């Protein structure tokens, strides 16, 4: 390619657009469906209802410890399908590029998407590219949509499935992604060695779903923006009971805790990009925990709480000193403290 940065001409539908598609996207994502380059992709699905989702990804910086926007864009949509109990099958990817983005950066991101997709067993079968003028976007926005097929065809994962006595399992440490991104932004004068947890959860969810009878996993979610607290609040609001969690059981890396101590952030509200929280029947919790702990993405998995028989539809945290408090939805922004 003659130039080393994206220009508006790369988005005008002409020769440069075609070169960009050929040399960057088609080259990286090559597969029999995409290679046909039709206006739509023709995909085959087995019988039964499909699961369909979409998500947009904007992140600053584009590259951060443990990932980049491309990995995030694939993992995010794969995870939304995975926690719906599906095997992710096909993805589409749309790119809004700000002129001036180095083409090498775009190639690196696209390669990262392809690598992540291959590892997750999904195929990128459709896509689109637009270029906007300088200031019209922040370097690169990616939207991915995904289709998957369900493992247990009739099972719906809703908070209404939760029963008193059920266990709340969490696949690992919280807040890694948020702190990795914050440290990459350089806004905090701290040397933190923390990697984002950005990862595809579908292998883990498939193993879990296949190990226990249908319906015994009541609901699954990946606690992304808003963190664990927000996800559990969504569970509580949609269910019929309170959720009681133990502060001392919630895994959190020392580095993340340290940043939270200094800034006043609460790890419960920090974003994750590769964690799974699920509610299951208590008799299957040890089987599920064992599978989680044997999986590379969930070695630090823990049972962090229970569904109580209290009809107060809130999340209650038992603190390390033995007190209790409400964990509500994130209200306002989390801001660093003054003193």
């Amino acid at each position, binding site marked *: 390619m003659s130039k080393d940065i994206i220009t508006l001409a790369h988005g005008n539908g002409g020769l440069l657009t075609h070169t960009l598609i050929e040399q960057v996207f088609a080259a990286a994502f090559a597969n029999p469906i995409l290679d046909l380059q039709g206006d739509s992709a023709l995909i085959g699905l087995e019988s039964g209802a499909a699961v369909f989702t979409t998500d947009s990804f904007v992140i600053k910086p584009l590259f951060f410890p443990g990932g980049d926007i491309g990995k995030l864009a694939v993992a995010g949509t794969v995870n939304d399908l995975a926690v719906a109990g599906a095997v992710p099958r096909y993805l589409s990817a749309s790119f809004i590029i700000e002129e001036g983005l180095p083409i090498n950066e775009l190639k690196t991101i696209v390669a990262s998407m392809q690598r992540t997709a291959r590892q997750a067993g999904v195929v990128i079968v459709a896509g689109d590219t637009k270029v906007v003028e300088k200031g019209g976007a922040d370097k690169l926005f990616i939207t991915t949509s995904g289709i998957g097929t369900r493992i247990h065809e009739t099972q719906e994962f809703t908070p209404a499935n939760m029963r008193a006595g059920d266990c709340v399992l969490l696949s690992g440490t919280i807040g890694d992604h948020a702190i990795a991104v914050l440290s990459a932004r350089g806004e905090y004068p701290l040397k933190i060695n923390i990697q984002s947890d950005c990862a595809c959860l579908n292998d883990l969810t498939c193993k879990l779903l296949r190990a226990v009878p249908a319906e015994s996993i009541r609901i699954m979610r990946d606690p992304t923006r808003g963190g664990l607290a927000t996800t559990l609040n969504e569970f509580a609001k949609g269910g019929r009971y309170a959720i009681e969690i133990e502060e001392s059981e919630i895994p959190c890396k020392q580095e993340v805790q340290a940043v939270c101590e200094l800034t006043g952030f609460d790890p419960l509200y920090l974003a994750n990009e590769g964690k799974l929280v699920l509610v299951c029947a208590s008799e299957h919790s040890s089987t599920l925990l064992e599978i989680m702990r044997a999986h590379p993405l969930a070695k630090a998995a823990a049972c962090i709480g229970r569904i109580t028989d209290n009809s107060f539809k809130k999340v209650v945290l038992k603190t*390390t000193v*033995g007190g209790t408090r*409400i964990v509500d939805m994130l209200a306002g922004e989390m801001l660093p403290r003054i003193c």
Partner: protein
Amino acid sequence: MLAYLNEFRTSKAAGYYLRAIEKVAPEHQVTLMEICGGHTLTLVKYGLKALLPEQIRLISGPGCPVCVTAQEYIDTALELCKLPDVIITSFGDMLRVPGSYSSLSGEKARGADVRVCLSSLDAVEIARRHTDKQVVFLGIGFETTAPTVAYAVKTAHRENLTNFSVLSALKTIPSAMHALMQSGETDIQGFICPGHVSTITGTSMYEQIVKQYAMPCVVCGFEPTDMLCTIAMIMAQLKQGAARVENQYKRSVKLKGNTKALEIMEEVFEEQDSTWRGLGVIPRSGLKIRDSYKLFDAAKRFSLTLPQAKENPACICGAVMRGIKIPSDCALFAKKCTPDSPVGACMVSGEGICGIYYKYSQH
């Protein structure tokens, strides 16, 4: 660091101090005031109140920097950010505090250049990088932040950064404690004194309060067991009929404080009367920039005419900070006033009483 901190957060340690409190707790009701918003946060975040004997009541005081900042100050900042070629730099909490007609975050969305800083030195760095702009730092807070603001002013002076200035609304804690006691409205039997402020000032400034009002004053750290230990210490004083200054937070607070920080504060600032939200004008309770550094005083650099400040008459932030009301007494609390759409300053800050109650308690 965390292993060290976690020692202060175990149920075993908490149990030890709770038993100590039980032993000295009086039969009648006792009300203590925690001055600092950080203490309110610890109490509520760790669910300590429910662990204490019923007769021990804790109320919050005027120790949240954002909350006590007067409406007129916010309005001044709002006028400043609309001037051409001005960059407003501020601690994050200030951005969403509603002024009479807007907020800094509202003006930022409309195009004003308002930037969040973690330290006043970040603002100096912005001034270095933007010599064609006037960079104004919103200097709020107490003795904890004042030395850092003083250091920023001295740095700008040394580097001749004439585009840097501070709009000071810095305040001193003991004057507010005196004002509370003299108002006669606040019925309390002991002060839980702020640990970070005292790290700078030392503990002797509370002697006058003890002497004048026969009020136990215990300087307290911010971990849950620090607070339980402090409560036990105050209860023991009350049981003995004593009133003295004690220091629970010895790992940080020394008798004479941080003399270097005090010197730099003294060099850059002098006392002035200051308006506190909820408490009104308290004589000699504020810090203004001395004439020797007047070049860096935004109040002198910019002349502004301000519209009459107006507050929502239903907001009871003032009474909440005087310890005579609690957030749920307010008709706006959790209805019209929420962290996403705050009416009063106490709902905004991480150390604001209403915000803390909203976030961690049932409402």
